[in-house]
């Protein structure tokens, strides 16, 4: 088996419910290596729940979940981060009272090893590791385009910068799969444009991206494939253009009758 050919992330018959509410039912996804995979759907469709299952914040109730050829079920988030899944959050969750640089340095935690002993003695290994962490963090700060003194606290960054800092922090964990939950939410056109080019650069560096987004233009421009969720079920999957014309998708977004409208207009509504 050549690891390059099998899908990076395979979800089969995924189910998750909270009490009587079925947040996800029978969702199956296959994300190929190196693609940007979009996940769309109306509010409350279960997109973020799916993200939380994939990143270990929720435990799945049914189905299987294979990442990079290994099955993960009932794993803690840090195990999945170790395996190579990193994420950002819909409402920004930075370490607000730590500096921009420290935020990214925390991301390096999972790939570094210094323990108590190393921290106390500051032996050669610990010092070297610390220097490498700091250098890599500075590099990532430049990479996502945050041009600020490194000691600026995360909470003092602008909104767009905070979004990008979250991406940098996720990248610091050296992920194979980067899961972004509405990265362009609340951004203006210029910020979205720079985010787009950042995501393209990230993809070019060989990282697979999974993206929840409401900005249809961004989805069309970026994604190789898109899946649509509605009421916890996958109702469509495919190339963005194709999905946009799918009557079931239009119905999900705009209600039953709207499915008869010309597809291009319906797409613009979103």
């Amino acid at each position, binding site marked *: 088996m050549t690891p390059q050919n099998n899908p990076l992330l395979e979800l089969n018959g995924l189910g998750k419910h909270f009490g009587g509410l079925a947040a996800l039912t029978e969702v199956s996804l296959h994300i190929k290596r190196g693609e940007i995979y979009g996940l769309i759907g109306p509010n409350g469709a279960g997109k973020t729940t799916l993200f939380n299952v994939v990143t270990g914040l929720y435990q799945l109730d049914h189905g299987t979940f294979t990442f990079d050829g290994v099955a993960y079920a009932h794993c803690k988030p840090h195990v999945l981060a170790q395996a190579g899944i990193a994420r950002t959050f819909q409402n920004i969750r*930075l370490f607000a009272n*730590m500096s921009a640089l420290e935020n990214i*340095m*925390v991301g390096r935690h999972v790939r570094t090893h210094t323990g108590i002993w*190393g921290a106390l003695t500051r032996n050669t290994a610990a010092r070297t590791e610390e220097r490498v962490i700091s250098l890599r963090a500075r590099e990532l700060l430049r990479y996502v385009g945050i041009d600020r*003194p*490194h000691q600026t606290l995360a909470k003092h960054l602008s909104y767009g910068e905070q979004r990008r800092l979250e991406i940098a922090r996720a990248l610091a964990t050296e992920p194979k799969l980067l899961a972004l939950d509405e990265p362009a939410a609340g951004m203006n056109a210029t910020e979205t444009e720079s985010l787009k080019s950042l995501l393209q650069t990230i993809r070019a560096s060989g990282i697979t991206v999974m993206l929840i987004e409401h900005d249809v233009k961004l989805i069309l421009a970026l994604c190789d494939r898109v899946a649509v969720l509605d009421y916890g079920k996958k109702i469509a999957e495919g190339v963005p253009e194709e999905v946009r014309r799918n009557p079931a998708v239009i119905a999900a977004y705009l209600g039953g009758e709207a499915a008869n409208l010309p597809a291009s207009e319906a797409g613009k509504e979103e």
Partner: protein
Amino acid sequence: MTTLGKFPYCKKCNTWRVYGMLAVVLFALPFGTDALLGRGWVRIADFALLYIMLALGLNIVVGYAGLLDLGYVAFFAVGAYNYALLSSPQFGLHWPVWVVLPLGGLLACFFGVLLGAPTLRLRGDYLAIVTLGFGEIIRIFLNNLNAPINITNGPQGINMIDPIQSSGFSLGITHQIFGINVPSVHLYYYLFLCFTLLVIFVSLRLENSRIGRAWMAIREDEVAAEAMGINTRNIKLLAFAMGATFGGLSGGLFAGFQGFISPESFGLMESVMILCMVVLGGMGNIGGVILGGVLLVLLPEALRNGAGPVQQWLFGKTLVDPESLRMLLFGLALIVVMLVRPAGLWPSTQRRRELSDSDEDVVKQEQGSVYDASK
């Protein structure tokens, strides 16, 4: 550019000058205090150092990892009783101090993990309540473990605990060193100072490390920290264990210094006092915590000694008992500080900014980025 190049150098030599002066002051402090204010104040200085150690230990749990612990004094009690039972006539044991002190630290560390393990899922208020309960459990155990087998001697406490001594040199009596009479309290002062410096050193090293950053990440946002690959269970347990170890260590020192301990010394008020030192001084900032410790030990003592005479002088008689005035003013001070400086007297973010100015590397980087921006 040349002036800028010189700037950090001068700052550095200034820093060393400050450290040098501080060392002289700290060294001369017991003799100066003894001569000016009396021996009682040297004893108060000893207690201040003990409380600083405790506050720094709690600072790891509360200030760094953000786990609100209201039962911290339990670890102090574990360390103290460990020392008391192993070197007093209670069991007739007189183990050497270099065994008993580390053992107290280890035992407290064990209890720290024991308390930490069931509370891992709790946050904020709930954690505070459980830790408060733990503190009370330990105290009540110590109070009642005198029957059916007498272990702790119950509410009477343990008496005649050995002073801290090693190879014939006891800190419990006055010694003549280089022709100078050095009383017991002075000797304890120097011992406590050494331990305090050790605790400061460990705190500093941990703060600026991978572990310290993980603690702060958990404090800031536990979910995000977990998603970034931090094993929150282990890192939180580590915080509990480290904090408890410091508590146990200072407990042993306390028992040796005091010569007598009883469960009364380890009540909830002690936990609250230590927490106040951390919060008032500035959570997560070592300098702030030390400041908080010094203030909260010295001010009540100053008030105790000063309130009577001041009232005499003002009104001609003592209107309010200094003891009750003490708690009154203490509460008032707390409210005022929290209103005026909610992040503590010396908050950690401010310190970070000060640090960043002296860090040459960062300054250079900052200049670089400003230069890039203006291009």
